[in-house]
């Protein structure tokens, strides 16, 4: 165990800031997951793989001399269509089935994507350099890579745009209506099939943005998707569906939690602590739910 956090107060500040910047990015991925989970009742295990695919789009732009930051515009456009294609090929066949079938189907998509990416892009770990430099605070004691600040900023911009879009646009309203009650929406003339396709596309596009940001901030690799799926699953579980401020808060909370787990328990327990937290939260939710039921009796 390491109690550096308490010996050096600046580390605490650093951990909080790192965690928040990271958490905002997680929240963006989780928001996509919450959206399609809420609308289509599908838990997308391939979420992380869509993120990595988005990352490769930015990486290839970087490779061909285009600044990878443009990836946050290009990747979502391409990924939107990838999302639609996945929907048409697989998801529309499982959308009304039970959750287990959709988990299996998306798990299959995840494996397929990993192998295809490995086949097409190779097994090397890659990254895109943004050359954004670093912001130093408090006499150089707190360092924030600008790429992380950029990532958080872009994530917020996309999240805000999406919220406005969901509130104001016709499709946004249709999506919300379908989420509330698909059958009623259908009766009232909403083409739910189209809504589902668009929702899956929007989710893939959000993953594309996040992937582009991850290739700028961290590294990407065909097999690195799963931790992102787990994190977003966990954020959604904590926040609940259709609760955007909740997703943002729980995303940042998870980011900070991870950073502190890293400092206090050690880096080796970082991902493990996320899993542990997930289990604890699931148990707690179940406990709360069972009490509620008793109360209703």
């Amino acid at each position, binding site marked *: 165990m390491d109690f550096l956090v308490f010996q050096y107060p600046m*580390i605490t500040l650093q951990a909080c800031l790192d965690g928040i910047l990271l958490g905002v990015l997680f929240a963006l991925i989780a928001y996509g997951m919450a959206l399609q989970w809420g609308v289509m009742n599908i838990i997308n295990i391939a979420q992380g793989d869509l993120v990595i695919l988005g990352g490769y789009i930015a990486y290839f732009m970087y490779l061909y001399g285009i600044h990878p930051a443009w990836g946050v515009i290009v990747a979502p456009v391409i990924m939107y269509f990838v999302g639609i294609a996945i929907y048409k090929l697989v998801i529309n066949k499982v959308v009304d089935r039970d959750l287990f079938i959709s988990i299996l189907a998306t798990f299959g998509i995840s494996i397929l994507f990993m*192998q295809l990416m490995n086949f097409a892009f190779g*097994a090397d770990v890659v*990254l895109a350099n943004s050359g954004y430099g670093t912001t130093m605070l408090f006499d150089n004691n707190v360092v924030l*890579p600008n790429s992380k600040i950029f990532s958080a900023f872009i994530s917020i911009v996309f999240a805000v745009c999406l919220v406005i879009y969901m509130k104001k646009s016709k499709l946004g309203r249709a999506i919300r209506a379908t989420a509330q009650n698909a059958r009623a929406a259908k009766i009232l003339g909403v083409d739910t099939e189209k809504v589902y396709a668009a929702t899956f596309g929007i989710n893939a596009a959000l993953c594309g943005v996040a992937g582009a940001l991850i290739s700028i901030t961290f590294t*990407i*690799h065909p097999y690195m998707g799963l931790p992102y799926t787990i994190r977003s699953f966990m954020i959604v579980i904590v926040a609940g569906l259709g609760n955007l401020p909740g997703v943002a808060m729980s995303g940042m909370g998870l980011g900070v939690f991870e950073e502190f787990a890293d400092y206090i328990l*050690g880096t080796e327990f970082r991902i*493990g602590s996320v899993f542990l937290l997930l289990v604890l939260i699931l148990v707690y939710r179940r406990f709360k739910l069972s009490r509620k039921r008793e109360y209703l009796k």
Partner: protein
Amino acid sequence: MKLNKIILSFVSALVILFSTSIASFAKVVGDKIILGAAISLTGKYSSNGVHTQNGYNMAVDRINSMGGVKVGGKTYKFDIIYYDDESNPKRAAQLAERLISQDGVEFMLGPYSSGLTKAIAPVTEKYGVPMVEANGASRSLFTKGYKYLFAVLAPANLYLDVAIETAVELNGGKPVRIAQAFEQDAFSQDVRLGILDAAERTGSKIIIDDKLPKELNDMAATLVKVKQMKPDVLVVSGHTKGALTAIRQIAEMKVDVPMLAMTHCDAAKLSKQHGKNSQYALCASQWHKSLTYKDDFFKDGMTYAADFEKEFGYDPPYQSAESSAALLVFKDAFERANSFDQKKVRDALAATNMQTFYGNIKFAPGGQNVDKPMVLFQVMCDASGSCENKVVAPLKWASAKLIHPIPKWSER
């Protein structure tokens, strides 16, 4: 009815004859010595799997074209049966079984990575099949008492202890303060054990000892600690992910440390992916083309590198060079054993004492190569920003002088 019986017994006799002939002649068919190898052609190790295969193929072509292997007055040529192990240890073990019991292979070449070698070694050991491997460096491979496993490379615990010794030497023989971060896999943890030994030997103190997760892509927390505690040496090992992540975040967070030592720099193509940010990093390597070891087949490192590039279109990483060396070892052992008897070949392998373009090869009783030191190179960049790996230790092979301490980021 009678005719049917005759036909049936004739066919079964043929089948039996055919199958026994495969089993007894499979190792050597006509003038071919058939070796078996499970290699990661798909999956997460596929890049290094391909480097390994290219190394094997290059050596097979070279040895065959230069007269082959002479055993019992007859000349034989090498041939290899490859299977794709999908970077999966279970699959690798199955394929080793298949190569030995179905294909009748009696001599094996190793797969890529310590993990897969660990999966295959019990199988080859069970059947008494000699295996020369070139890509499994984990120390635990050599402590199990395997009799048929021979590794041409130096074990993982020797990867970076040169760096610690160099740091102590540059510190006027006084102990240094070490920060280390290692991925939690067999190989990196063995590198860590080597550092622990070196620290104990030199009286140095380990002030940060982080373990990195397999999904490693963020080590900011470790680097923040490094920034606060100011160690003399930072050691990182986490395959290509570790090398790339470390360099990216050290540059972004402007972490000043007098010495930075890593593994897997060339596999990560550090100088290409990070350019000047990777400057001054010290990297452990099994081989470098500028080393002046010699043999009859590839002449020396420079010639090997040039020939390899001509054939495969890229500069050979050490994974290819050591794989080529494995074939040279087999050839030498077959000729000295003058037989295809597995026991005799095994004994000949154990008595190997030779020089190849890759380095000297002499096996300890555990099977590891004890006659080839690791080299350390440092990434050095010129004013135009193009970077090159230059050997700085051991001094005998050094082509440039070690730059120490690493200049501060504010002065670069």
